[in-house]
C-alpha cells in the first residue's frame, strides 16, 4: 500500500468512529430521534470492504454501517441531516437513520427486515452479469439475518448463476439479545457457502488487513466472472442493539476482551511500524474530522425540516 492509501484508510476508520461517537452524544442530547444503531467496534469491516470498491459498485449496507456510507463518498453533512430528519438529508426526512441511500454513489438503503437486501444485491449483480459490466454488488448483513429465508434464496440463486456479488456477514455474535448459539448450530456461518457452491471465508472483522485481504480476493473473483463469495467477519458491537438497549445480556468480560482487540489501535500499530509519525498524523486527522463533524452538525441543525405535506411526495414517478 502507498502511504497515501494507508492514511486514507486511517482517515475513514477514525471518521466512522468519531462520527458515530458524535451521533451517540447527539442522541443522548435528544437531537437525533428514533432508532440509533451504533456500529462502534465494527469499523474495519465496512472500511476494509468498501475501500476496494468504486462508485459504480452497489453496496447494500445494514443499519449500523455508517462507515460504508462514508467510504462510498456520501457527504457527512447530508448524512448528518439524514439522521436529524431534515429536508436536506438523503431521504428528505422520509425515514430515519440509514434506511436511505444514494444510487449516484452506489449505496442502497436497507429496510428493517434484515436480510431483505440480499436478494436485491443479487439482482443488481444479475444486471451486471446480463450487461457484462465489470461491477460488483455487496450485501452486508448480521449473523442474525442469516436465519431468514432471504439469505438462502439469495445465495442459492447467485451460486447457480455465478453472479458478481459478495455477501459480507458482520458476525457480532448477538442478534439484539439472542446469542449466535441460539440462532444456529454451526460455529462458522461461512461454512454454509459450500452448500451454495461457492467459497466462504472467515476472517477477523477487527483486523483491517484481514478484511481487505479477504474482500480484495472476493472482489477480484466477482469482477472476473468467478462468482460470489460469502465472507464472515467476526467482530463485536460495543453498544447495544440500539442506543436504547443496555446490553446486560452480554458478560462484561466479553466486552472488555473485544475492546482490547479494537480495530483502530491495531491499525495504528501498523502505521507506526510503517514509519508514519502517528502522533502527528492522529492529531491532523482528528482535527480535520472535528471540523467536518462541526460543519455537519451545523448544517443539519440549520437545515429546515420538511413540510408536513411533503409526506405525500416521492411515492410515485409522477403524481396521479
Amino acid at each position: 500500500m502507498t502511504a497515501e492509501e494507508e492514511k486514507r484508510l486511517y482517515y475513514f476508520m477514525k471518521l466512522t468512529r468519531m462520527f458515530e461517537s458524535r451521533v451517540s452524544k447527539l442522541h443522548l442530547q435528544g437531537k437525533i430521534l428514533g432508532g440509533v444503531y451504533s456500529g462502534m467496534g465494527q469499523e474495519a469491516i465496512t472500511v476494509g470492504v468498501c475501500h476496494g470498491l468504486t462508485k459504480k459498485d452497489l453496496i447494500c449496507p445494514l443499519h449500523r454501517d455508517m462507515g460504508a456510507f462514508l467510504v462510498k463518498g456520501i457527504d457527512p453533512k447530508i448524512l448528518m441531516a439524514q439522521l436529524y430528519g431534515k429536508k436536506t438529508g438523503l431521504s428528505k426526512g422520509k425515514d430515519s437513520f440509514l434506511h436511505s441511500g444514494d444510487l449516484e454513489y452506489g449505496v442502497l438503503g436497507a429496510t428493517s427486515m434484515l436480510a431483505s437486501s440480499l436478494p436485491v444485491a443479487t439482482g443488481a449483480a444479475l444486471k451486471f452479469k446480463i450487461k457484462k459490466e465489470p461491477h460488483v454488488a455487496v450485501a452486508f448483513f448480521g449473523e442474525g439475518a442469516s436465519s431468514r429465508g432471504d439469505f438462502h434464496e439469495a445465495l442459492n440463486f447467485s451460486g447457480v448463476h455465478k453472479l458478481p456479488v459478495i455477501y459480507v456477514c458482520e458476525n457480532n455474535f448477538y442478534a439484539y439479545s439472542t446469542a449466535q448459539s441460539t440462532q444456529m448450530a454451526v460455529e462458522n456461518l461461512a461454512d454454509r457457502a459450500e452448500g451454495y457452491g461457492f467459497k466462504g471465508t472467515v476472517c477477523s472483522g477487527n483486523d483491517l488487513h484481514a478484511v481487505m485481504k479477504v474482500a480484495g480476493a472476493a472482489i477480484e473473483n466477482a469482477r472476473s466472472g468467478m462468482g460470489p463469495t460469502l465472507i464472515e467477519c467476526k467482530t463485536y458491537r460495543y453498544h447495544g442493539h440500539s442506543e436504547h438497549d443496555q446490553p446486560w445480556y452480554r458478560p462484561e468480560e466479553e466486552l472488555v476482551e473485544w475492546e482490547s482487540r479494537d480495530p483502530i489501535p491495531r491499525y495504528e500499530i501498523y502505521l507506526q511500524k510503517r514509519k508514519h509519525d502517528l502522533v502527528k498524523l492522529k492529531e491532523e486527522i482528528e482535527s480535520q474530522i472535528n471540523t467536518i463533524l462541526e460543519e455537519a452538525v451545523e448544517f443539519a441543525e440549520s437545515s429546515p425540516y420538511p413540510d408536513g405535506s411533503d409526506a405525500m411526495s416521492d411515492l410515485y414517478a409522477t403524481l396521479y
Partner: protein
Amino acid sequence: MPTTYLKAINEALMETMAGDPNVFVLGEDVAMLGGAFKVTEGLLEKFGADRVIDTPISESLIVGAAIGAAIMGMRPVAEMQFGDFISCAYDQIVNMAATLRYRHGGRAQVPMVIRIPSGAGIHGGLFHSQNTESFFISTPGLKIVTPATAYDAKGLLKTAIMDNDPVLFFEHKYLYRRIQEELPSEPYTVPFGKAVIRRAGVDMTFITYSAALYPSLTAADELQKEDGLNIEVIDLRTLRPLDWETIAQSVKRTNKVMIIHEDRKTGGIGAEISAKISETLFDFLDGPIVRVASEDTHYAFSPPLEEYILPNVNKIKIQAKQLAAY
C-alpha cells in the same frame, strides 16, 4: 385472426423485449417450459437465457432480484407462477419495492412488473385460485393493474413495463384462453388510471374489473330484456391509480351503484370505492351502495362450493333488482 388474452400478454412481452434490451423476464419455469400457462412461450428462443431466466422456487428472491436489477436501470418482468404464491414475496413488495423511491428522497426507482396469474373458477382450490389484489391495495408506492380484455392485457402490460414504478399486474387465469378479440396490428398502449365504460346506461352503474366484467355485462343485458333496466358498466382497468372521475360522473347520472368483483367482499376495493362514494356523492344516491363479491371464505375446491363463493350472473341480477326498487 383473433388473439387470446394469454397470447396478448405474450405479445406484449415479445414486443417490449424486442424494443428495449433492458427488459427481461424471470420466474419459475418461465424459460424452457414457457411458464406453467405458456404465457412466456417462445421468449427463451427469441431472447436467450440471459433475458429469460428460470429461477428456483424462491418468490422472495424473484421479486428481490427484480428490484435489484430495476434500481440499476433494468426493466424486469417477474412472474409469480400462481398469484397465491405472492405472499412468499410480500416483504420484498410492500417493504422493499414500495418504499424504495420514498425513502431515497425520490432519487431511486423500481421500474419493475410482477405478473400475477390470479383468480378462481378453474377448480384450483385454496392455493391456486386467490385474488390477492386486496393484499396490496392499501400500500402506497405500488400500482395495481387488472385487465379484463385481450386488448387491455396487451396495452396495459406494455404501459406497465415502461412505467417507472413497481406494478402488480393481475392477469386472470380464467380469461387466458376463454376470451379473444382482434387486436390492432400497429403498436398501442393503454394508459393507467383510465377506466372504460363497457356498456352505457342511465338507470344504474356497475363498477367492476377483470373477470367479473363478464357476468356483469351478461347480467346487464338480461336485466335490460327482463326488466327494462338500462345499466352502465364501468371496467376500472387499474385499481391504483383509480379513475375516480369516470366513477363519479356515472354515479351522478345513474344515482345507483353496484360494485362487482371476484376478490373477497371484506377489504376488497369495493369497500374503498363504496366508502368514497358515500363520503363525496351521498346527495346523488337514491339507494344503498351494493357489493357483489366473493364470499368471505377461502376459495374452496368442490364445484358446488366454488359456485357458492364466486359472484355470478344470478347473484348480480338479484341484487340489482332489489337496488332498482329503491
